[in-house]
């Protein structure tokens, strides 16, 4: 029988953001080597390898259909890998499924609450199934409900909750058994911007309160900024892994968006006069150049196309994605939307 406590001495140093795998206190929370998943003809995950340190918040960023959910479902023991191996909380996801499951918390894309039970009943159901010791149960219940601001609503039927409240309750439930690793699959998808930022403030608060590793997937660039490190995944492969800051610094160049009267001529001019490759994105001629502000006067002087407006911006994760995959995340989603019509989790659950 394993005994785990979530208590950590306050003097224990927290892993620094961007800590590379292997640093810190020994065992990695998540360790993945050449993980693959094939559904018939489709290679959903094509040999990914990475490590997540304990206490780290690690994000998988990529368009829908990139293999994020498939990877997460293999790590959660819900899908069997067709190649490679993965360890979560020190246990093999194929050979030690129950050991892994006991140590992870899951928040799925789609709600998995019982609408006809109260918030408390949903959490109690979870606690009983995960064998949480009765002695500390009431205290833990209050703790997680207060963390997500639902303590006052504990007696309410879940069917009366808003979408944001349900998502918060699911996060609380995922924490009920004090998991070592919390998996959040698109934790804010389908929520309005205000609720999304609320969810994030709860997640950030949770990082401070619990000794927990958070593994999340998202296709929102702004959400990836909350992570200590992110892996950009595209077409079932990891393109790059680093801290958001390092990734943006790596792009090096500023993004310049120019609105002109003749976009084609402007793009030709940029290539001929300055040797810059430009793309047409959302009605603006877009290109990347170092020292964007200094470049603008030259642009006006030398580009023989009437310019209506210019915008210079520091690189964002969008640019990082662009720099590594050659397209924006929105373009990537448009092209891959038909590839993964249903999430593999839904298929896995329905096949049973």
């Amino acid at each position, binding site marked *: 029988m394993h005994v785990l406590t*979530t208590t950590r001495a306050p003097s224990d140093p927290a892993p620094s953001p961007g800590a590379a795998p292997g640093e810190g206190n020994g065992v990695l929370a998540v360790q993945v080597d050449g993980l693959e998943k094939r559904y018939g003809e489709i290679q959903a995950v094509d040999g990914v390898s990475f490590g997540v340190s304990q206490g780290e918040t690690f994000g998988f960023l990529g368009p829908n259909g990139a293999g994020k959910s498939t990877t997460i479902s293999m790590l959660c023991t819900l899908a069997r890998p067709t190649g490679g191996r993965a360890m979560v909380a020190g246990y093999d996801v194929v050979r030690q499924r129950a050991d892994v499951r006991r140590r992870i918390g899951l928040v799925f894309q789609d709600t998995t609450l019982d609408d*006809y039970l109260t918030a408390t009943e949903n959490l109690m*159901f979870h606690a009983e199934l995960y*064998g*949480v010791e009765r002695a500390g149960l009431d205290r833990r219940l209050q703790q997680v409900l207060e963390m997500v601001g639902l303590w006052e609503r504990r007696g309410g039927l879940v069917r009366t909750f808003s979408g944001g409240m349900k998502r918060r309750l699911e996060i609380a439930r995922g924490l009920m058994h*004090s998991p070592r690793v919390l998996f959040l699959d698109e934790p804010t998808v389908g929520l309005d911007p205000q609720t999304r930022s609320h969810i994030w403030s709860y997640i950030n608060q949770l990082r*401070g309160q619990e000794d927990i590793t958070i593994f999340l997937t998202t296709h929102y660039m702004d959400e990836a900024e909350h992570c200590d490190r992110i892996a950009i995944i595209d077409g079932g492969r990891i393109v790059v892994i680093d801290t958001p800051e390092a990734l943006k610094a790596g792009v090096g160049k500023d993004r310049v968006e120019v609105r002109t009267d003749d976009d084609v001529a402007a793009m030709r001019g940029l290539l001929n006069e300055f040797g810059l490759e430009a793309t047409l994105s959302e009605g603006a001629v877009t290109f990347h150049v170092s020292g964007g502000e200094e470049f603008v006067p030259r642009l006006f002087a030398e580009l023989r196309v009437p310019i209506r407006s210019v915008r210079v911006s520091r690189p964002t994760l969008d640019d990082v994605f662009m720099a590594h995959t050659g397209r924006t995340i929105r373009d990537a989603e448009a092209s891959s939307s038909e590839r993964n019509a249903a999430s593999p989790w839904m298929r896995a659950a329905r096949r049973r």
Partner: protein
Amino acid sequence: MTTTVAPDVAAVRLAGGAWQDELRAARMVWRREIIRFGRNRLRIVTSLAQPVLFLFVLGTGLSTIVRGGPATSGSNFRTFIFPGIVAMTVLFSAIFSAVSIVWDREFGFLREMLVAPIRRSSLVLGKCAGGATVATLQALIILVLSPLVGIPFSAPLLLILVGEMVLMAVALTAVGMVLAARMQQVESFQVVMQFVVLPMFFLSGAMFPLTGLPQWLTVLTRLDPLTYAVDPMRRAVFAHSSSAAHFATLSPGVSWFGWRLPVGIELGVVLLIGVAALGIAIVQFSRPD
């Protein structure tokens, strides 16, 4: 990142996969069924309307044309169908409870159960116990009406009937679980109703005695598991009913090739079907992805 770790985070012991943990999980799955049943008053009322209609409207109406005619008191035919109506209540409720797992799948809650670190058999057993309890509770409400159809309250009779109801409820919920295991859509429930539940009800002898039927119908009635649950209840009712003598012909029992089965064998058949169905359901739900 500044990390301040609260020193009072509750310490939590995790389950180690012992049988106590499995039992605890199964009991929670069972409790959820009871909580949901208690909360759904509408379901309780609607599911009682049908047996009451069958018993008092159909039962009274048909009693004018059954053997003995109107001269025999109408309550006699109602006495005859009463065990059948109790069986119907158990059948509908048990299948509905089991098939609710398809709703759980549709609305995602099934996944919460499937990812838990417990055996699938604990889930199936808990769900089955929950469905059986709910079905028995509903049939108990019908049982309260028995004095109205000429069956006096008596402790031994009630005990026998409740025991038979529990057995039937467990077996039928298990059968329902097998049906639900492969069911992907809520709409399939209609198919189960039309092609499994209603034929089971009609062929069981709930509404008519199983003697003097054409050969093909006799064969079908003997293949119906519910037949072996209705007959023991009817025998018990007639053994304790004042009008038993009139209806000896209406309760001829179930025979295989001319051999009248003892009650013990009949209940054994029900038990066997229940255990087999439970086994199949566990295998189906344990199948890995």
